[in-house]
């Protein structure tokens, strides 16, 4: 079992907001030029989002827009290696990078009616549904650490991605905010 840095921290659970550290997911950073992007779509049967701050979903997983030529592909953990090999083969000759960051970056799954308030204790972005609709992805801050925030298609579940050594800080930050919201 890979180690979880939040396992020994206080739980975030209650009527207002809940958070769990997701089991280890496969995560691949994709850096793709135009040709590589087209070949990736064909190889993985997933649309690679072109519009900033958006995401797509397909059988293979969830693809999060991170930058003009940068995405995070989230898959099942046991698929990451295989997907990476498939991509490296399919993308031969193109300008690309496929980097396994499954262990670098961890994910918290947050939900509950007050989830936006909990995040707003440290995240400066406008998380109102009118400004942050379902599917939105943003790289932002939670307090003093960088995070990637993804509102899933259900419009009520946030996946918060944070690098491993910052997970402790991020979790405690959320827990401090959640105490009030969970009454």
């Amino acid at each position: 079992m890979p180690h979880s840095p939040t396992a020994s921290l206080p739980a975030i659970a209650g009527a207002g907001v809940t958070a769990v550290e997701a089991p280890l997911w496969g995560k691949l950073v994709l850096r793709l030029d135009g040709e590589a992007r087209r070949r990736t779509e064909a190889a993985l049967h997933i649309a690679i989002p072109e519009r900033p701050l958006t995401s797509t979903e397909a059988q293979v997983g969830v693809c999060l827009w991170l930058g003009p030529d940068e995405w995070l592909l989230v898959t099942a953990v046991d698929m990451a290696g295989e997907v990476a090999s498939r991509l490296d083969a399919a993308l031969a000759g193109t300008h690309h990078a496929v980097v396994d960051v499954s262990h670098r970056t961890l994910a918290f799954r947050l939900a509950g009616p007050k989830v936006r308030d909990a995040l707003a204790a440290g995240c400066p972005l406008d998380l109102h549904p009118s400004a942050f609709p379902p599917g939105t992805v943003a790289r932002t801050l939670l307090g003093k650490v960088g995070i990637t925030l993804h509102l899933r298609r259900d419009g009520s579940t946030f996946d918060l991605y944070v690098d491993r050594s910052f997970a402790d800080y991020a979790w405690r930050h959320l827990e401090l905010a959640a105490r009030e919201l969970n009454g």
Partner: protein
Amino acid sequence: MSGAWRLPRGGRVDRARPLRFSFDGKAYTGLTGDTLAAALLANGVHLVARSFKYHRPRGILAAGCEEPNALVQLDRGGGREDPNLRATQVELFDGLVATSQNRWPSLSFDLAATADRLAPLLPAGFYYKTFMWPAGWWRRVYEPRIRAAAGLGRSPSRPDPDRYLHRHAHCDVLVVGAGPAGLMAAAAAVMSGARVILADEQAEPGGALLAEPGLRLDGMDGAAWLAAALGELTAQPNLTLLPRTTAFAWHDHTYLGLLERVTDHLAEPPPHLPRQRLWRVRARQVVLATGAIERPLVFPDNDRPGIMLASAARTYLNRYGVRVGARVAVFTNNDSAYATALDLAAAGVTIAAIVDCRADPGGELVQRARAVGLPVRPGAVVTGTQGRLRINQAFVAPLDGGGRSSPVVCDALLVSGGWNPTLHLHSQARGRLRFDEKLWAYVPAELVPGEQVAGACAGSFALADALREGAQAGVAAAAAAGYRAELPALPAVEAPSWSEPAPLWRVPLGRGRAWVDLQNDVTAKDLELALREGFRSIEHVKRYTTTGMGTDQGKTANVNALAIVAAGLGQGVEAVGHTTFRPPYTPVTFGAFAGASRELQLDPLRRTPSHAHAEALGAVFEDVGQWRRARYFPQPGEDMQAAVGRECRAARQGVGLFDASTLGKIDLQGADAAELLNRVYTNAWAKLTVGRCRYGLMLRDDGMVLDDGVTARLGPDRFHMTTTTGGAARVLAWLEEWLQCEWPQLRVFCTSVTEQWAAIGVCGPKARDVIRAAGTDIDLSREAFPHMSFRDGSVAGLPARVFRISFTGEIAFEINVPSGYGGALWEALWQAGQPFGITPYGTEAMHVLRAEKGYIIVGQETDGTVTPLDLGMDWMISKAKPDFIGKRGMARPDLARADRKQLVGLLTRDPTVVLEEGAQLVEDPAQSLPMRMIGHVTSAYHSANLGRSIALGLVQGGRERIGQTLWVPMPAQPAIAVEVTRPVFLDPENRRLNG
């Protein structure tokens, strides 16, 4: 009973819920809904404070945040101490313990009040004039004594046990102030669908509606209309109502800071709530409906307890059901004070006189006062008062000077010098002000982008105007934020109109000191003295006299001071200008600013995947940037030197275990990756074969060392770069900057993989034995796996990438596994290493081991002014490459000087002496001060392996000095003799490394 001065009915207090509290140790009873000031007044307590400088007895002046006098210290126990709280804003709770400040031994008998008798010796600027000689006394004698004598409350002495949080918020319209104007603005905006935040500093929204019973809106009294309006507003999901929330700062681009006092009003704050919350609001539009603050009048002895703003007395009467006196005099230059007099008279208070400086006041309220027989004294002023701890008489005389003054017996004197629109936020937003000579007040000269103003803060004091302007502002704000808003129906209003005020900045009659700034004890004479001494700018006058400073920032004092200065200069008020408004509007706790950033959450604390294992082995940790790294692993009875010595010997003679996970790691991919390395490192990379590693030195463009590390070639177009722990983020940003800004044609993608990999080093002659014992499919033999290469495989059943690299000069393998398995790898190596005496070592031993080999640490041997040539690393610089970052910088003639500081070894003559890092080196220790310093020590350790101390240093022309003796002068000790040597102390032939 909640005080003898409480009315039997009326007010917004709950007579069924009395609250016990104490002030200066004496027990009192107040009511739920009271402020501390209201409860004290209900108990007849007017004397609540001593003034800052002269320790004069002071009472409660105001009923809101503008209060200059009534500052108290609250102690809730357990470290919950707050100095300088305005009693007028402290909401009463059961068991509240408040004390007065700045007095000894007691409030009614304060020994320091002798300062008041010395007042002629302590004019404005007396600090600068009196305490000049002897010069050395200022810091040691004068300042400590002055600080002890003057001042406000006590700083808390214990850590604050409360929690504070921040909240980021975004809205279309932020309405500041929930009085009539703000309520209408919020209503208009919210109906358009805009996201609205309505913030009000008081416990209850309503503003003036809470204290003015005579108002009627749509046939309802103010309270009933307020309840209905609030009910409708708060039913809207797009409205956030924030009571007890002060908008204290307006930053650029309509970004405002709000302080919400979440639990300050509760006797027992529930543990799940933060005490206070700092809101950081990004608003598209801001409606300021901040109201106005009444001005006091400047006349002799105008600072006695019992002298109060007329509007405050009205608030205490109508909102809290408290009479501020039994026989009350009123002194005014405008109509608003008449409303107070009428309300008080209706409550059975005797009005001793209404002294109005206007010769012929004729407004509706004046007529009403006359009609009910209140003694109006037109054309008159108060020329002085009497009463040591509370006013007992005022002296009234005709303003034209044509008559004698007559005493008016009273136990309270209510003053009104007109109204100042509350424009602090407007001014913070860079909004200009205009002095209106009808209102005799500053009003907004223009709006700033994103701003609307409405009601009293715009100079519109009539209720109907405030409601209309509020609605218009709400509509305008919503429209500007992109919503279709319609003007809501305005309530029909019955409210008395006001006639014009007359300017009265200073009563020209009477003797005695006339106070302008009550908090800082500044008199009208002090201001005039400053002018006589040549001060002209209002900013200078402020700083010289301290008027407008302090916790209240002159909310009641400033405009009077400006006008007095203007008169003294023979100018108009506007020509004098006004001092700058700066955040915060009212004081904000440090806790609120810090928010969650304290203790463990002060800064991210980064731990490596095997942290818990190091902890279990008794590691002592050190902070390296945000990382917490194991420094050494003491065994029972060992000090640091003993532990480090043991760890260093083990790493050279047996086997050591080291956590290198914090090193920066960057994945580089692309057809031009090797070219990028060629450009950012000083040495050549094109010919590095797949599977091999190379050490690289990175320079800034000025030729100075930026970072170093080992980079491995994973494939033809793929590299794995490592950086220093502290340089990881900097180096990635550096690469991206060059790729994105200078060399966009290079096809390279950089990805941080620092945290993807945990890296555990196994070092020493028995390293192979341990890894084999842990289980591996990698051939570790010298032939199959030479120094500076890597292999993929498995170690201890984990997928691993093993680098054979060394920062110790020993055979060393750095085993990288996905970071979730870092702890498991450490544990497996630790167990497998037991038969071999495996010894975990920390950063301290790592530093010693590398220094024995003369390996540099960037940031220790370098400080941003050191070139590779200075370090003797010429061999790292490719002569063949046409260019690399820093090549031209390094070619500057100055960097080729022979007398630049160069890296050398330093051996003390006495081998037991360990030099101090940073110590300076000189040629002649007998020379006179200041000595000519020719270098400094960069690293110094006791080396257990060498049985003596070693050091590295940077010395002018150092390589030429090898063999010379230099000296390290030490304070209060004889200078230490050192021999300059080559910087490699152990195995210069690298036999051990390649073994």
